[in-house]
């Protein structure tokens, strides 16, 4: 410990930073020895500490698969369930360094049911190590893994043909696998592919050149990783930065903060803000609290402009030559990540970079068979499904195809009720038709039409179980209002299904569309100055929320017609509950299809305590 004085941290950090951190993902399943290969990388690069090694030695006797030798997979399988079952379930991030580079490894599970985990790991990776068991060759999962990483934008692949020790280090086997693999990924657009024969267990060609494969003249795995050139020169491109945060230090200061996505910006340069299209000059650039003359891709910068302009989180600052596309309709590749299936037409929250908007899936183009690449027809997506869809968002946003920008070409969808991340998407291309259909302005507005009828138009939305009394109450409200000269119309669930919605059934998907159409019609009626009463079971909160979002505050009155399922079943005026119980009627709300009661309705009437007349009075009072 006495020779320490020579060490200079600055030089060390400069050297390691110059090569850049390489983020890579490993794909394969338990049998391919994926965790063992990573364990070997960590061990041989001396990134495993003595206490960790002795801990896995202890665990090896309990969970290990290698007898007396420590099971290297235990270095990476962090969760108890993973060690017990001997599989990787979740994405784990590992860190190690050589004297050339620093590494972040995403270790992800390979089974089909964990596709979303692999996509997560791949979303930030520059390179993928695809593992193949030399004894088995190319499997269905090999193409699946390759297609997923290609879809997520990974450009570089290492084909690690593992367990060479179990095929007597045969050159022929290695060559055959390599040839087959290259043929299978022809369409996937990788810019580099390197095949390396290895043994994770014995260490051949991982860190140390194998003595058992004299016929192989290529690099070891670590030699390749240390030298592969992954960084295209992002700082040479035209400048672009998405604003993450507006720093209002005091009344006079406004700094616009974000991470530079592409290019270099020099003080005094002219830029354009999207979507406002305002052009301005850069007055000051800050890196932290230091003033600098220029910033480049990858830096977290704060920009101050010449004049005071209105810029919000999610807006994009770019050089004049490189404005992003502005659109509210686009085609995207989608990976469904939620246990509950997609509902086309349902409204979701879309987060793209730092921008948040409402979105819905307007069309499913196809579902992709990720193993073969073929396109299939479908009505919705289930967990781990991947396919192409059209998406419409509530306002025009800055976007780019994913192939041009990971930052504003990628997005997630969030369920409005459960708050779960239900999908990850990548923009394929923008749909131009949105720019060709403009809203026709009509001279006479809603205000005049309401005034003409001496009323304020509203939408009264009755929700509740079948047989709760919605139609009865709607009828009484209609009569009461009409008798005092109001102009009212009822949209009844059953009646609308005879005409407008005759093509829809009772599956969850069709119910969503049913409610969407009626919401839009109700909106037109309110625009026409009418009081419209919608009497619909409308079982899902998301769709009622969507309906509400179409109206101005105060114009949408949600009425919960609250009758217990037992009481509804007892009444059973239409005999439907009896049929549903016998199994003659499928997807019946309250029996085999869920009803989600409103959380905070404007009016809540309990029909088991009030007469229909009294319920109607409560509603009329709220309206007047």
């Amino acid at each position: 410990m006495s020779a320490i004085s020579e060490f200079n941290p600055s030089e060390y950090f400069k050297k390691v930073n110059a090569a850049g951190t390489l983020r890579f993902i490993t794909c394969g399943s338990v049998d391919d020895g994926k965790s063992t290969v990573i364990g070997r990388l960590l061990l041989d690069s001396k990134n495993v500490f003595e206490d960790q090694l002795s801990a896995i030695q202890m665990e090896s006797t309990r969970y290990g698969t290698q007898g007396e030798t420590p099971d290297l997979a235990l270095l990476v399988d962090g969760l108890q369930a993973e060690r017990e079952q001997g599989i990787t379930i979740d994405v784990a991030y590992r860190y190690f360094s050589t004297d050339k580079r620093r590494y972040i490894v995403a270790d992800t599970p390979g089974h089909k049911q964990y596709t979303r985990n692999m996509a997560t790991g791949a979303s930030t990776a520059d390179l993928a190590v695809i593992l193949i068991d030399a004894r088995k060759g190319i499997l269905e999962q090999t193409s699946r893994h390759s297609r997923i990483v290609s879809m997520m934008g990974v450009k570089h692949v290492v084909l690690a043909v593992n367990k060479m020790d179990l095929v007597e280090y045969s050159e022929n086997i290695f060559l055959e696998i390599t040839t087959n693999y290259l043929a299978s990924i022809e369409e996937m657009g990788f810019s580099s592919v390197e095949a390396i024969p290895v043994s994770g267990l014995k260490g051949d060609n991982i860190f140390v050149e194998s003595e058992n494969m004299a016929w192989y003249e290529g690099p070891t795995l670590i030699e390749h990783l240390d030298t592969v050139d992954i960084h295209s020169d992002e700082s040479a491109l035209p400048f672009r930065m998405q604003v993450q945060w507006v720093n209002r230090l005091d009344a006079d200061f406004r700094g616009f903060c974000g991470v530079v996505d592409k290019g270099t910006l020099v003080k005094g340069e002219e830029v354009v803000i999207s979507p406002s299209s305002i052009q301005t000059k850069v007055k000051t650039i800050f890196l932290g609290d230091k003033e600098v003359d220029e910033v480049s891709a990858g830096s977290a910068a704060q920009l101050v402009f010449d004049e005071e302009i209105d810029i919000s989180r999610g807006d994009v600052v770019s050089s004049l030559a490189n404005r992003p596309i502005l659109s509210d309709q686009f085609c995207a590749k989608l990976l469904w990540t939620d246990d509950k299936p997609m509902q086309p037409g349902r409204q979701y929250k879309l987060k793209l970079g730092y921008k948040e908007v409402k979105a819905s899936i307007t069309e499913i183009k196809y579902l992709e068979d990720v193993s073969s690449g073929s396109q299939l027809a479908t009505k919705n997506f289930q967990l781990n499904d991947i396919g192409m869809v059209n998406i419409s968002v509530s306002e025009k946003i800055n976007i780019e195809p994913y192939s041009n920008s990971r930052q504003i070409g990628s997005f997630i969808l969030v369920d409005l009720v459960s708050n779960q991340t239900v999908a990850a998407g990548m923009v394929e291309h923008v749909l131009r038709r949105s720019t060709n259909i403009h809203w026709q302005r009509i001279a006479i507005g809603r205000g005049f039409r309401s005034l003409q009828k001496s009323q304020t138009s509203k939408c009264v939305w009755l929700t509740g179980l079948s047989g709760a009394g919605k139609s009865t109450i709607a009828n009484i409200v209609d009569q009461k209002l009409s008798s005092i000269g109001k102009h009212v119309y009822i949209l009844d669930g059953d009646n609308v299904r005879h005409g407008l919605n005759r093509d829809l059934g009772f599956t969850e998907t069709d119910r969503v569309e049913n409610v969407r159409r009626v919401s839009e019609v109700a909106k037109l009626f309110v625009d026409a100055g009418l009081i419209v009463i919608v009497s619909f079971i409308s079982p899902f909160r998301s769709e009622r929320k969507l309906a509400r979002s179409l109206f101005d505050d105060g114009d949408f009155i949600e009425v919960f017609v609250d009758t217990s399922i037992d009481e509804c079943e007892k009444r059973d005026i239409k005999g439907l509950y009896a049929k549903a119980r016998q199994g003659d009627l499928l997807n019946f709300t309250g029996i085999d299809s869920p009803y989600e009661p409103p959380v905070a309705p404007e009016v809540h009437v309990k029909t088991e305590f009030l007469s229909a007349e009294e319920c109607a009075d409560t509603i009329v009072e709220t309206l007047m």
Partner: protein
Amino acid sequence: MKTQALKQALDNGQYDVILAGARRDEEKSRAKERIFSFRNSSHGWDPKNQRPELWNIFNTDINPGESIRVFPLSNWTEVDIWHYIYEENIELVPLYFAKVRPVVERDGQLIMVDDDRFPFRKGETVKHLKVRFRTLGCWPLTAAVESDADTIEKVIEETLAAKGSEREGRLIDSDSIGSMEKKKREGYF
């Protein structure tokens, strides 16, 4: 003790977001934790039910009763931390630097004897060794390591050459296999 005190403070404050400095390179179960890590109303972590975290897009929408533990330094390593301290000249508590200090050797760990509350076990005697702490947790559950690194340059060199992990001195991690995961499920950081 730490878990209970933390939970009480969180319940009192009703916080939506708690920022912390945990890193994925510290421990195996932390390696699987998200940057935005969701906790249920009793502060428990469910490692099997984590939201996918793609690109740098974070879903921060919480349900009633839920809270988020946010770990902005998730992807930093122990060396990265020292690099940053070095570049930015950050002032540190002296315990991170080596100095001759009174310690007791217990179960292969060096526990510092810093005041008269120290509960000696039978046969334990105080030794004066040059030690430092790589990690500071609660006393007396964090052990020191023997070291000559009394400057930041030496600390960085020692960290790069270290043979033991940073949390080697955290006795709390090694109660049993999966010990940290179990504590995290119960609400520990």
